[in-house]
């Protein structure tokens, strides 16, 4: 097969699968739906892996071509096209692999759900949309994929559409993302205006010439065009990758079924913003201001969202806040110009976070869809596979040496330390402090769920058992890369230049150059990892969690009481939701009501329209005799009037 055919099949297989499972849901039945969609995504994964193999192991020339022309207007060609380089190949493989695992897992997780086929249709559609996003070679298709994954996320968060909390959450998710897309769209418009194209390659080529230009936006203040573009685009990333203050939708997205929390709201879609900034690194490298902005936003998210994770009791919400925090780490890496490290963490995180979510899902199945960790405990004895894989995911999450998360997180911290730009000091503090916090909430979750005495009621406990193989197999298959993928790939990806055809930072600005001076192979690096401050900070977090949640449960309550104001602020998530609900939503609706009632009804209709109508009415009351109330009389009168006008005009002219 021709390589272009293969590349086209990769997104189209899941699209076709989605159509079959969705539109022919009654014809194909449940087994038909999951067979078709799993075959589709499995095929897509196999082809992606093959492409990745070609890209990383052969002398691959970056492939950048047009699939079809979307529109040609005003000298601009808008197109759908693919850019296949190392970054794309990596993303395609990660996306299709996690998606494949989640598809299999779903057979077990959703087996009693009446919307079984619909669910498979949606996750196949999601895979298509995400692939279109990462394979894009231009901003138009990026935006298409961007909003398409948003659509599927909306449909999946609201999958159980009877549940008020679910449909509230999906509307919130879509609208918050739209607020981000508002920035993204303006950024795209600026790109077109100043670079004259939406094609990545052409934009990158034109960017250096634009670097010095300024534009006047806010009352005569001159902005660097490049800074405007980068920040506007990043606002889109803040929505999709849930960075403070546009993060509020992600915890609520947990209202959706757990498989999609793993796939969309942890491993793939939410990393689209990270991917985009890395993809556009040639632009971001031209604006130090934008990078500082990114660095600070990422640092805030990494630390403060992790803190909220400590006080959550819903197992999925702990993992969700952990996701926010980890996305913050990736963003920090972007801000430090360590784009490839961000992508590396994106990849390792995709595996271990999908694993943790699916593990949480496995627990939720055993607990009969209860998610409160206060009613769990001691589950390790009942579900050993889930417990062991959850431990593996947790160790990777806290960055225990040799696990996948260790390599990516450690190098992020090292990169931030050597980054030389505004905000780097704060970011360094945040990522160090974040290590303690991560270890604390992660082990709190492990202990509360799997260890100690069971707090579940007897009824639930009597039914609790290890999940079926369709659930545990994906856990095992995700646990393997969570352990080894970092050790295997850190050297080629970060120091071997495997991503250099996509991400290229000038050596003087590249933090990896400094980090690389101390890097002598993955094993040596990991061994050294045991004696770094980062490791001891993580152990501190683990120790606190062990003491409080395993040995002295009373301490937690005491601390909560002693530090009540702090606890309250964390519990209310810094009042972001209250603020948005009251000020933005409440204010918007008040404004809407005011415009509708006072503007349209009172001012325009009341005064202007009916006011003049009354005036006319007064004048024409003498003509009242002509009004008969029959419509056709009016219609007839109109035509007479028309003829009379023309006639009058004839006379005038004659």
């Amino acid at each position: 097969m021709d390589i272009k055919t293969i590349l086209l099949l990769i997104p189209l297989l899941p699209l076709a699968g989605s159509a079959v499972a969705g539109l022919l849901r009654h014809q194909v039945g449940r087994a038909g739906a999951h067979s078709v969609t799993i075959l589709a995504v499995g095929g897509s994964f196999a082809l992606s892996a093959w492409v990745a193999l070609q890209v990383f192991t052969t002398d691959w020339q970056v492939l950048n071509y047009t699939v079809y022309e979307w529109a040609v207007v005003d000298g601009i060609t808008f197109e759908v096209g693919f850019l296949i380089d190392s970054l794309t190949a990596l993303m395609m493989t990660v996306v299709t692999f996690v998606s494949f695992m989640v598809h299999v897992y779903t057979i077990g997780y959703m087996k009693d759900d009446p919307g079984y086929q619909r669910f498979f249709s949606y996750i196949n559609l999601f895979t298509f949309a995400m692939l279109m996003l990462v394979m894009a070679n231009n901003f138009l298709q990026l935006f298409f994929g961007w909003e398409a994954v948003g659509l599927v996320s909306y449909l999946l968060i609201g999958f159980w559409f009877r549940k008020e909390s679910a449909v509230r959450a999906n509307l919130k998710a879509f609208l918050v993302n739209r607020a981000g897309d508002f920035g993204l769209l303006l950024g795209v418009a600026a790109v077109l205006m100043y670079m004259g194209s939406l094609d990545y390659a052409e934009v990158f080529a034109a960017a250096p010439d634009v670097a010095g230009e300024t534009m006047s936006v806010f009352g005569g203040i001159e902005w660097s065009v490049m800074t405007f573009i980068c920040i506007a685009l990043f606002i889109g990333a803040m929505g999709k990758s849930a960075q403070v203050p546009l993060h509020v939708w992600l915890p609520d997205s947990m209202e959706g079924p757990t498989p999609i929390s793993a796939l969309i709201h942890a491993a793939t879609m939410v990393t689209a913003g990270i991917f985009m900034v890395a993809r556009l690194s040639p632009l971001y490298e031209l604006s130090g201001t934008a990078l500082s902005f990114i660095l600070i936003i990422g640092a805030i998210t990494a630390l403060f969202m992790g803190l909220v994770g400590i006080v959550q009791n819903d197992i999925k919400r702990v993992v969700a806040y952990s996701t926010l925090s980890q996305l913050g780490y990736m963003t920090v890496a972007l801000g430090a110009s360590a784009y490839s490290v961000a992508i590396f963490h994106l990849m390792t995180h995709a595996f271990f976070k999908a694993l943790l979510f699916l593990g949480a899902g496995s627990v939720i199945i055993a607990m009969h869809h209860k998610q409160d960790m206060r009613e769990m405990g001691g589950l390790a004895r009942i579900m050993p596979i889930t417990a062991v894989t959850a431990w593996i995911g947790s160790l990777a999450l806290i960055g225990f040496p040799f696990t996948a998360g260790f390599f990516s997180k450690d190098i992020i911290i090292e990169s931030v330390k050597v980054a030389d730009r505004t905000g780097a000091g704060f970011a360094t503090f945040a990522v160090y402090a974040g290590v303690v916090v991560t270890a604390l909430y992660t082990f709190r979750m492990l202990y509360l769920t799997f260890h100690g005495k069971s707090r579940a009621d007897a009824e639930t406990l009597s039914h609790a058992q290890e999940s079926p193989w369709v659930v545990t197999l994906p856990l095992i298959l995700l646990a393997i890369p969570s352990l080894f993928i970092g050790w295997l790939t850190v050297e080629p990806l970060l120091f071997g230049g495997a991503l250099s055809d996509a991400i290229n930072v000038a050596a003087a600005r590249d933090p990896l150059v400094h980090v690389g001076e101390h890097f002598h192979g993955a094993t040596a690096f990991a061994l050294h990892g045991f004696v770094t401050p980062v490791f001891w900070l993580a152990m501190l977090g683990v120790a606190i969690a062990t003491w409080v949640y395993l040995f002295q449960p009373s301490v937690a309550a005491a601390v909560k009481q002693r530090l009540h104001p702090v606890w309250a602020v964390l519990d209310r998530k810094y009042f972001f939701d209250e603020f948005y609900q009251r000020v933005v939503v409440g204010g918007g609706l008040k404004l809407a009501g005011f415009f509708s009632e006072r503007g349209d009804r009172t001012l325009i209709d009341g005064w202007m329209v009916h006011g003049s109508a009354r005036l006319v009415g007064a004048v024409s009351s003498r003509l009242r005799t002509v009004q008969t109330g029959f419509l056709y009389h009016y219609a007839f009168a109109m035509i007479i009037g028309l003829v009379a006008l023309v006639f009058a005009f004839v006379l005038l002219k004659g």
Partner: protein
Amino acid sequence: MNAMNWPILSLIVWLPIVAGVAILFVSEARAALGKTIALVASLVALLLTIVAISGFDMTTAAMQFQEKAVWIEAFSIHYHLGVDGLSLPLIALTALITVIVVIAGWAIRDRVSQYMGAFLILSGLMSGMFAALDAMLFYVFFEAMLVPMFLIIGIWGGPNRILATIKFFLFTFFGSVFMLVGLIWLYLQAGSFAVADLHQLPLSLNAQIWIFLAFLIAFAVKVPMWPVHTWLPDAHVEAPTGGSVVLAAVMLKIGGYGFVRYSLPIAPDGAAALDWLVIGLSLVAIVYIGFVALAQRDMKKLIAYSSISHMGFVTLGMFLTFAIVQNTGQTDGAVLGISGAMVQMISHGFISGAMFLAVGVLYDRVHSREISAYGGVANTMPWFAMFAVLFFMANSGLPGTSGFVGEFMVILAAFKADFWFAFFAAMTLILGASYSLWLVKRVFYGEVANDNVASLSDLGAREWTVMVVLAVFTLGLGLWPYPLIEMMEPSVANLVDHITTTKINP
């Protein structure tokens, strides 16, 4: 110039009118006959537009398929038809929507033959208006069109239909009087009503401003633009489903078409002088009306306000040219803006038509347009919910649907004119999604709200047909707008050339 040897445009215009008049006399007892004639006639008209499109030369801005005959010699008024890339897509849209309303109106019980007749006549008149190349002929179609729509709302409308029809009539008639005066004045200058002659007529700046204002009033009411928009929600609420569909899908496009065919080319310097006014009103429409839509409790009103807000993109896109030239010193982006406006008109035809049909589907079953009368409809009508989510997503400008294309192009062009134009226009991303998806949430999601919703039955075959057709067009135009834009491009480019050249008397 006529690529065909037979008067295809006249057939497109007059076939529905003749068939429509014939059906008017079909008695109630033989309603099936009337419906069949209506369906056949509308399908033949659609087929004729497809023939016209396939024979259309996409490489030229010249008028094609022209037909010309003297009508009133004393005033050199001609029966003159012809189409270019601006009008042919609108004629095709008219023909398509007519087929849709005929199918959708199949179950009408009251005076069904007359109902079908009125729609066919209306369809022919609208096509005639788009195809007219003589200003007086245009005016006659423009006014005549009011009559069938007036009757459709007045006879098959809701309880407050009389008030709504009077408001509808007064607004539009009020506007068109100014246009008539303007046309007569132009005739006195040019000695001709031929659109082409008027385009070439040199005029002083002062004269252009007056002409521009006279036309603006007529077209602004039709679009409708803020603040002369309040007739539209009332008309929609009272109109029967088919009336709303035609009103939103086709009649609102008359204003936009008037701008590109009359206002801009006849008075380009006037338009350049007053572009700030139109752009300002467009942005008010997008933002202010977006908020007003959010406050609506009646589904039809909400969609009506949404239409006004979306039409803001049409007028915005059309008037960006002058600001772009002023800001960047060149015309790059002007074609993008006007093409975007034209695409938005076609797209809105599909989407608003589909949304009004969706409300009709619910109204036929429950007899309420109130959002609060529903809830959890997706439980009992899952397929219908799928279509509704698609169309409301399209309405909120989702990429991949036609709703995205025009807005995207206009926003890109607006950025070239002024950052703030793009900023306010882009607010539609948030506002459009808010009112569209909030409606979806309240009507379709949640538990089954009441017994009415519990007893709903999913789409019937006829409803499926119209939904599928509109879904195909919405997605087709969203995924591949290339052919439509290709068809328009020469005419739009020609228009931009024309309006950026001054017409002021030396």
